[in-house]
Structure formats: C-alpha cells, structure tokens
C-alpha cells in the first residue's frame, strides 16, 4: 500500500526481497547500501542471528529522486528465508508494493527456489494480492559461481522453473560482486512507480 504524503510531496513504497534461505537477499541490500551516496540513504537495519541468518528482516530506505514533483522514497525489506519463519514473512509482506524474488542458482537449491516462490504466491494471496498482478522481478543470483566447482543451473532451466508462467523481468546477478544488483533495483522501482501512478489515476477517476 503506497503512502502519498501531499504535505511533503512524497510517495513512499515498500519493496520486499523474497527467496529461500541463503539465496542472497541481505547481500543485495548490503551491496546497495555500500554503493549509494549518504544523502539518499537511511541507516541499514538488520535483525539477524549470530549465524548471519536474517531473524526478522533487513531494512533500508532510499530516495530515488523526483517524479512529477513528488519525491520517491522506497523502503527495501528482506524476509527470513527459512521455511519455519513463515509468520515473519507474512508480517513483512504487509502493505508490500513490489517484490524482488531472489533465486539461488546453485543446483542443490532448485527445489527450495520453487517452494519459496509458491510460498510467496500463497502469502500474497492471503493478503488479497495476486502474484500475477503485483510488480515482480526475478533475480538469478550467484552467477559468479559459473565455471567453479559449485554446480549451478543454466539460466534457461531457472527461467523454465520459475518464470515460465509469470513472464516477469529477470536478471542474472552476483550480489556479492554487485553484478545485476542495481539493474534489479531499477527495474522493480520502475514497475512499482508505474503501478502507483496507475492506481492513483484510477482512484481519481472513481472519485470524479
């Protein structure tokens, strides 16, 4: 649910990074935080366990500049990936305006990616939101492992597993090295702002 503040000419949107455990959601946010200028970002807040696993969420607020006189502020959240933290994922998804689904390219994680995407669809549906209508971008992370000892899935298999029905924009990435991180963020921000503008116009029409 985007928040439009007319007294400050500001639009606030919520984007959630979703995906299975250890797929690189927090790493995405850490890379963004490390490479953004001080004046456009807030503090990065992480609630994690000692084992570097997200317990509740990570949070980062970014200012994306102006569109039609409105300052666009996006709030990036991650969710805990482990299966048993479903209640927490549902809490973080509250009021979400756009989702980045991070898929782990490792072959051993294939099943977990699919399970996590199904879990996302289920949790969104519980909030009355369809995975087919919400702004969504898929990121295939850990592509830097290509050519190493770790076996990773080819892009076409990942696309077939996760994006054959949804057909949303997808990016190959390495959150650790930064490849594809900002491309993903740019695309989801674009989709979210477009969606907010559409909803505002629709509401204006209905009120006339």
């Amino acid at each position, binding site marked *: 649910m985007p928040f439009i503040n007319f007294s400050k000419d500001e639009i*606030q949107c919520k984007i959630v990074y979703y995906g299975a455990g250890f797929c690189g959601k927090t790493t995405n946010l850490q890379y963004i935080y490390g490479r953004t200028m001080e004046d456009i970002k807030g503090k990065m807040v992480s609630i994690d366990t000692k084992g570097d696993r997200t317990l509740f969420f990570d949070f980062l607020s970014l200012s994306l500049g102006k569109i039609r006189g409105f300052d666009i502020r996006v709030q990036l959240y991650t969710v805990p990936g482990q299966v048993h933290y479903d209640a927490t994922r549902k809490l973080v998804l509250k009021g979400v305006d756009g989702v980045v689904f991070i898929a782990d390219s490792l072959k051993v994680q294939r099943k977990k990616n699919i399970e996590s995407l199904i879990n996302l669809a289920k949790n969104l549906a519980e909030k009355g939101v369809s995975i087919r209508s919400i702004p969504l971008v898929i990121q295939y992370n850990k592509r830097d492992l290509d050519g190493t000892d770790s076996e990773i899935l080819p892009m076409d298999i990942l696309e077939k597993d996760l994006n054959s029905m949804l057909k949303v924009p997808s990016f190959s990435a390495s959150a650790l090295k930064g490849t594809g991180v900002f491309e993903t963020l740019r695309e989801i921000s674009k989709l979210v702002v477009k969606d907010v503008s559409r909803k505002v116009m629709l509401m204006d029409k209905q009120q006339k």
Partner: protein
Amino acid sequence: MAHSVLLIDRSGQLIAHEGNTPELDIISLSALTAANFGATAEIARMLGEEEFTLLFHKGKCENVYFSAIGEHVIMVTLFDDKTSLGLIRLQINKIIDELSKILSSIFEKGRLKPSEPIRSS
C-alpha cells in the same frame, strides 16, 4: 511531556511526525515499530487475545509508548524519564478516540483495498 510523536501505518510507513528529534532515524523507527507491533499481535493471538492495543518500553532515560489507533495506524510516543507514564497514558486516552474517528473517516472515504495508496495532506 512527550518530546516526539509519530503516526505510522501497520506496514511501517511514516504518516506524520511531530517533535524535536533531529538525531533520530524516524524512517527506521517506523519500520521497526510496525514489525514489533505485528510480532506482539501474534503473541496475543497465541494467548487467545485479539491483539495487545498498547506496548511500553522503558529505558534509563528514554521511554516509548505504542498505542494502536483503529486497525490501520499506530501512534508512537517518545518521552524522557522526567515524565510519568501515567500522565502520558492519561493524555493519550484523551485524544485517542478523536484521532481514531478522524483516521477511520479517511480510510472509509478512500474505501481502501490492501493495495491502494493512502493519501495524507
């Protein structure tokens, strides 16, 4: 008295802020408050309660009082150790009904669905 008051929505978006706290990261505070409230609501449900409508955290110098206003909004009141909790509760109870009516009328007017924008002016 309270030195800062925030109105936030349940998804963690800041709606309004009044007070003098330049050093405070109110955007992050809003996100954490919503999460805190959500987590506590789950505890309430486990105990057979619908939700806990107020939360209070006490520190050495700073205290925070969270109150639910209707189903969409949380009010966060920050106050120091020179102010008594009773006084804060009394003042909040005086305004909470009025605020609740104003906010309900805004939400009803917009007939908001979960994904529709909230407008504030």
